[in-house]
């Protein structure tokens, strides 16, 4: 029951005959914790809703390929410092307003405004500043970067999820006047119960979408969501969890599409505090983990084993010659002995969704003689506080932080392990690594990039500021008897343009 359709707007129809038109897809998802506002959103449900209604210049496919959407094509000049995008002609918003370069410029200016509060501001940080966007012609948008950046198209793609193209007069009231160019139009929204979307009759891709509409129901609780899918109350989950969905797929109760991904839950160790200021201690913890077991019970075998560096196997530049780290109790003992630590114990801080992982870590380390105290926090608590001095997710001795899949490794490496990185929770600082990361970022050839990536991976694998036991895949559970074309996406993105009734 795995849908194998293409996500691109203009590509062919799914196998199994021409898609039927009509039908309403009922989707379940957790209620967004905050207002659905494309500029500030960061949670999966809000992103999914926005992606049904509005579009990016470029879509990010399930295998991280860039797919043209509102931009038909793009090219760079000045060694990657200037980028020009040609817009798709004839696209209008669902209210009939045409999309032109000024509209696109306005959308980016909105994100780049220092007062915008958008997380995209951090993504653009050293690359693009306010005033860097220009509209030389009605169908052309130009970006003048602060520095050369070969992966810039990713930053204007869905990979930077806030970067949807909205009307010029958008004023932060998306759930009331949410107008975009996407396949669906928001008909009603209720923060407690869900949203109703209907087909955008003005959609630029004729024939799409096949569905008459999408109805989104909010489930405050994962299990309720999954039970609803089993019970037939909904047809698809927007945000499925592999650990919950996979075993049910095995019973045939539901269908699940799976995809490998670059999402990861990182075990961060404070390299500037005892006991993890000793490399041996960090390595000991890394050798104490049974990674296949973790991948199986936490990752449900969707995904790949991790090797304690940030270059996921899915990234083209991922090294292939680094030996896979595996459980080795003798080595643990030896490393701990070398570090002079007899009774290793530490506190692991995490938020509720990572509970199972934390419990498993605790259990596995216990078998290696390492004692872990679990400190579960609410998400607000975990991410609350000051990122400069005390927020738990960046300042506790050891913690688990989940990262959504990124399209390019730099998006992980730069903030997480470069010295002084915004989200460098391990407080790791290594000039060699910083240099390798910079080299990767500015590399223009695949070979140079691969070489830089190998250096980064080697340093991280050796120094272990982070333990990456597995790379999570993504799944999407749905009722394959009723709908086809539902696909998983490594970043849980949603594209229902090609979903149709069975």
């Amino acid at each position, binding site marked *: 029951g795995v849908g194998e359709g293409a996500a691109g707007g203009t590509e062919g129809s799914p196998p199994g005959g021409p898609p039927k038109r009509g039908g309403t897809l009922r989707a379940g998802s957790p209620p967004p914790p905050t207002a659905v506002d494309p500029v*500030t959103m960061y949670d999966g449900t809000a992103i999914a809703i926005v992606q049904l209604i509005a579009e990016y210049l470029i879509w990010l496919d399930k295998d991280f390929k860039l797919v043209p959407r509102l931009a038909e094509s793009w090219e760079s000049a000045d060694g990657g410092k200037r980028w020009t995008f040609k817009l798709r002609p004839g696209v209008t918003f669902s209210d009939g307003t045409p999309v032109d370069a000024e509209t696109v410029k306005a959308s980016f200016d909105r994100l780049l405004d220092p007062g915008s509060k958008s997380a995209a501001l951090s993504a653009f940080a050293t690359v693009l500043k306010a005033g860097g966007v220009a509209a030389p012609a009605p169908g052309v948008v130009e970006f003048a970067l602060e520095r050369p950046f070969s992966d810039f198209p990713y930053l204007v793609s869905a990979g930077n999820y806030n970067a949807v193209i909205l009307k010029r007069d958008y004023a932060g009231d998306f759930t009331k006047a949410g107008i975009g160019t996407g396949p669906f139009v928001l008909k009603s929204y209720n923060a407690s119960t869900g949203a109703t979307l209907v087909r955008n009759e003005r959609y630029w891709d004729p024939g799409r979408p096949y569905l008459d509409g999408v109805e989104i129901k909010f489930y405050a609780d994962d299990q309720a969501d999954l039970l609803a899918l089993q019970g037939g109350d909904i047809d698809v989950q927007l945000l499925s969890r592999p650990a919950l969905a996979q075993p049910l797929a095995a019973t045939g109760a539901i269908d699940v599409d799976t995809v490998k991904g670059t999402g990861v839950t990182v075990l961060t160790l404070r390299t500037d505090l005892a006991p993890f200021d000793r490399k041996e201690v960090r390595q000991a913890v890394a050798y104490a983990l049974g990674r296949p077991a973790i991948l199986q019970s936490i990752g449900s075998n969707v995904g790949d084993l991790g090797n304690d560096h940030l270059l996921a196997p899915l990234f083209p530049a991922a090294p292939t010659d680094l030996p896979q780290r595996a459980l080795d109790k003798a080595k643990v003992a030896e490393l701990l002995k070398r570090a002079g630590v007899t009774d290793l114990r530490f506190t692991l801080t995490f938020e509720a969704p990572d509970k199972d992982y934390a419990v498993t870590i605790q259990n596995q380390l216990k078998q290696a003689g390492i004692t872990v105290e679990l400190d579960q926090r609410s998400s607000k*608590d975990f991410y609350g506080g000051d990122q400069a001095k005390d927020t738990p*997710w960046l300042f506790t001795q050891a913690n688990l932080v989940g990262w959504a899949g990124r399209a390019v490794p730099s998006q992980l490496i730069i903030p997480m392990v470069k010295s002084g990185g915004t989200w460098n929770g391990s407080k790791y600082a290594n000039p060699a690594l910083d240099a390798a990361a910079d080299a990767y970022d500015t590399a223009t050839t695949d070979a140079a990039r691969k070489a830089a990536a190998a250096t980064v991976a080697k340093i991280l694998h050796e120094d272990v500021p982070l333990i990456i036991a597995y790379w999570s895949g993504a799944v999407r559970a749905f009722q394959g008897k009723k709908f086809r074309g539902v696909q998983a996406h490594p970043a849980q993105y949603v594209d229902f343009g090609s979903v149709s009734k069975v």
Partner: protein
Amino acid sequence: MRTFLLRRLAAVPLTLAGVSILVFLATDVLPGDVGRTVLGREASAEAVALYNRQLGLDDPLWLRYGRWLGHFLTGDWGTSYTLREPVAALVGGRLVASLTLALFAFVLLVPVALGAGLVAGARHDTWLDRTISATGLALGATPEFVTGVVLLVVFSVQLRWFPVSAQAGPGDGPLAVLGHLFLPALSLVLLCTGYVARHVRASTIAVVDGGYVRAARLRGTPPARILYRHVLRNATVPATSALGVQLQFLLGGLVVVELLFNYPGLGALLLQSAVDRDVPTLQAAAMVLGLAYLTVTLLADIAYRLLDPRVRLAVAR
């Protein structure tokens, strides 16, 4: 009755003021940061600080409380910190949902509990009574998430008689809405029946063994007529306060059922806004729940007074 009502009514704002202060103090010591919650962990510290400043969260506690109170009293319940929706509409919608579920459960509860209690009381100390009483006790002691899970699996997932979610679709008619509400209501009814039935049973026994039923028997009144003329009313009236307690519970204690059956009620909102430190929403939800709670208490007392002529005409206290 008048003085009784006035006294009770005067106590309501006092109690609510107490609750609001408690809530405010509680939210102040809760960790977490509203701006961070709204903007996400990847937003910049400046953006978060700006957001918090715009909400006035930097002001001292008493100032924030005073401001909140002033607005609240003038009918301006503010905007949710996190959802950026008007709190009045948000809480109002949840209240309607909670009331619907609670009342539906209550409507199912009353005949079941009264019937069970009357039968058990009228046949007290027989196997029938013992069965009813023990069942009620056992069900009342079983947490609703246990019964709820079993009901869900049997009736929704396996038999597919009822939907999994208590939340009806946008176009559903009233019957479909009740269909959605049936399982959650049933799990609540199972929880509450025993308690109410026990009260009805006790008062039934008191009535059945009491003076005027004996007098009626000694007049040669047929048993059915005794049950209908004397027992029914006298045994059920004292149960009003038990029913009131249950209605209070139904209004306020729904978090579990709301989570289990995915119902957007006040309980879930309360939990959510407490975790989020969404003070305006939390306050409004707590106030509305508190008011509903106190109203039900009052209504139960008034109903008791109206139904029982003895207290109906008596002086307060």
